[in-house]
């Protein structure tokens, strides 16, 4: 054993742990209970101590192949068998197979008389014999404090208990000792004094008539552990401790996108839709179509052959299917194909933790790609806002770790948009769609906008959200002179715009015509001016030509004259 641990774990040697087999506990304790050491489990009556320890033994025998001894100081073996039979454990068979030994220790004060010194060797021998007979690795003493009720000599008892726990350690068995919660101390007899390696406190609280079981690790020597109070649950499969691995925020993220089922909404989300594995909140007042959006999202997922679970807290599946048929969404075929699963439960059916566990169980069993919770607001009826928030945080953590996309719907109670309501999950979700009433002009219309959408470009516009027989669609809201117009006001405005368009184009046509005419008038004028010009030029030319002609004629005449009388000048010159 020693060699084995040295081989597997590097120096410094870590505390070896034994898996309890109880869902969730090993995660909180990062591995389980300390191997070879006693663990104290304390709690008030009915807090689940016996079941807790019994499950430790049974899981050890069935899952980890580690035989166990259950020493019961309270209940008889056959009573225990019957009690756990309802959880599907066959204790009788395990005992037959020599995997579990149940030893009932009966102490009846009325038949015991004490005189002088004694010790509890009888108990040691019994326990030792039981351990050896099945080769037990796990031991439970439930509830050893009963010894105090049966025996008077406290000094001896305490000394013997100390010896017992030392002896158990020596035996190398992983032990659970249960103890009833005392006043002002963890156990009535102060057992925590002896068992100091690991102490787990179980609690059972009832508030608003709804009970919640809680578990807290008070101490765990030599190991890190979650220190919170973790709710746990006892159902037909035993104990489940929550939450589920939410000690860290380090899950994988995907940048794949999935469509919302409303093309116009995808456009608002950068054209591609939501991130895969993200959480989406749809909030709005009553009757704004939140369920329709959710159903549309589910429908789209199923059409993509993704698996989807729809948790409805208000309506029955049949109701939702019928209602969605009216807007052209056929959920029935998806259910028949096995792609969609609907799960309806009234919130008041059980406490929040039970809801969480049932949701998580369904998710683990069915492995959907998309989960819808409709609406989360109703959960407030079974818990306070902060409890609902803590539950949703854990749910979101779980879903994101599993890469499941989740859509919540939430009902806003007042018409004024309150940014901080919605069960406080608005800060947790990745995308927040807000659907609201727009009451105007004697009618009620729906407006939708994106409050946030982490990690993507998204539209800041308010869109009118319309529900038609064919499905859901978004319209640009009409921003007119009178502000935002929706519904018939928008339609009227659009009609008026269309009319205006026609009138305007007619006016333009007429103007075109007028210009054409003007042009032809201008053209005509230009032509007549041209004519005028031509005639003036002609006139001018005529004058020129006449002048030329006259000049020519005069030149001709003078030449002729000169030729007729020979020049005096030349004869004169000759006579000289």
């Amino acid at each position, binding site marked *: 054993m020693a060699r084995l641990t040295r081989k597997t774990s590097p120096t410094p040697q870590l505390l070896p742990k034994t898996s309890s087999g109880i869902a969730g506990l090993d995660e909180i304790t990062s591995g389980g209970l300390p191997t070879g050491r006693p663990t104290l489990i304390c709690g008030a009556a009915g807090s689940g101590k016996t079941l807790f320890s019994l499950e430790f033994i049974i899981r050890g025998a069935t899952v980890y192949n580690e035989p166990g001894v259950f020493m019961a100081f309270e209940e008889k073996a056959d009573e225990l068998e019957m009690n756990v039979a309802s959880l599907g454990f066959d204790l009788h068979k395990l005992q037959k197979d020599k995997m579990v030994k149940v*030893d009932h*220790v*009966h*102490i009846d004060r009325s*038949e*015991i*008389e*004490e*005189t*002088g*010194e*004694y*010790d*509890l*060797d*009888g*108990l040691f*021998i*019994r326990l*030792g*014999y039981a351990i050896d007979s099945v080769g037990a690795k796990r031991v439970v003493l439930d509830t050893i404090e009963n*010894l105090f009720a*049966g*025996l008077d000599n406290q000094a001896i008892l305490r000394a013997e208990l100390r010896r017992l726990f030392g002896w158990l350690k020596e035996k190398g068995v992983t032990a659970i000792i249960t103890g009833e919660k005392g006043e002002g101390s963890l156990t009535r007899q102060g057992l925590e004094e002896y068992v100091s390696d690991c102490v787990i406190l179980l609690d059972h609280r009832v508030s608003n008539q709804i009970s919640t079981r809680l578990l807290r690790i008070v101490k765990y020597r030599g190991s890190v552990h979650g220190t919170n109070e973790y709710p746990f649950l006892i159902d037909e499969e035993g104990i489940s401790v929550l939450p589920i691995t939410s000690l860290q925020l380090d899950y994988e993220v995907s940048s794949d996108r999935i469509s919302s089922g409303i093309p116009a909404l995808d456009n608002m989300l950068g054209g591609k839709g939501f991130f895969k594995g993200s959480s989406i909140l749809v909030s709005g007042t009553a009757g704004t179509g939140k369920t329709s959006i959710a159903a549309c999202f589910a429908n789209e997922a199923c059409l993509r052959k993704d698996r989807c679970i729809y948790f409805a807290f208000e309506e029955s599946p049949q109701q939702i299917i019928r209602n969605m048929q009216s807007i052209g969404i056929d959920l029935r075929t998806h259910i028949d194909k096995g792609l969609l699963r609907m799960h309806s439960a009234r919130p008041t059916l059980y406490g929040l933790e039970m809801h969480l566990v049932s949701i998580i169980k369904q998710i683990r069993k069915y492995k959907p790609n998309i989960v819808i919770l409709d609406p989360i607001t109703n959960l407030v009826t079974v818990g306070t806002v902060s409890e609902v928030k803590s539950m949703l945080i854990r749910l979101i953590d779980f879903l994101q770790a599993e890469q499941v996309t989740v859509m919540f719907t939430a009902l806003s109670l007042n018409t004024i948009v309150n940014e901080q309501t919605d069960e406080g999950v608005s800060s947790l979700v990745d995308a927040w769609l807000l659907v609201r009433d727009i009451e105007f002009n004697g009618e009620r219309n729906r407006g939708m906008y994106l409050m946030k959408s982490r990690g993507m470009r998204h539209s800041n516009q308010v869109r009118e959200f319309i529900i038609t027989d064919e499905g859901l669609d978004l319209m640009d809201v009409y921003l007119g002179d009178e502000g935002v117009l929706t519904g018939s006001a928008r339609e009227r405005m659009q009609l008026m715009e269309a009319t205006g368009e026609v009138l305007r184009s007619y006016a333009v046509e007429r103007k075109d015509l007028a210009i054409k005419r003007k042009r032809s008038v201008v053209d005509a004028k230009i032509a007549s001016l041209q004519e005028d010009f031509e005639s003036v030029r002609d006139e001018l030319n005529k004058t020129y030509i006449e002048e030329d002609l006259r000049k020519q004629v005069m030149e001709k005449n003078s030449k002729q004259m000169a030729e007729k009388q020979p020049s005096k000048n030349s004869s004169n010159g000759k006579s000289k």
Partner: protein
Amino acid sequence: MEKVSKAIAGKAPANKTYKYELRLYIAGNTPKSIAALSNLKKYCEEHLKDQYKIEVIDLLVHPQLAEGDQILAIPTLVRKVPVPIRKIIGDLSNEEKVLVGLNIRPVK
């Protein structure tokens, strides 16, 4: 069981029925066990002469027998007969308590 009781039965033959059938559980020869046995023998001889049978069971030898009589403490004296079963734990050093516990009326 039968074998054991025969083997460690007191001085009387096994078949005979006694008014008092006592069984003393011990674990090895510890001082407490020895003290208990000698005390018991003394009281019995004194008050129940020839009416008793003592069985001594060493749990170190027969650990499986501890369950049957619901033995926790060592030493434990069990009065099997007469019914109801009574148990006296401790080294039996207080004579008064033992006699009252075994429902033996001491002769005054």
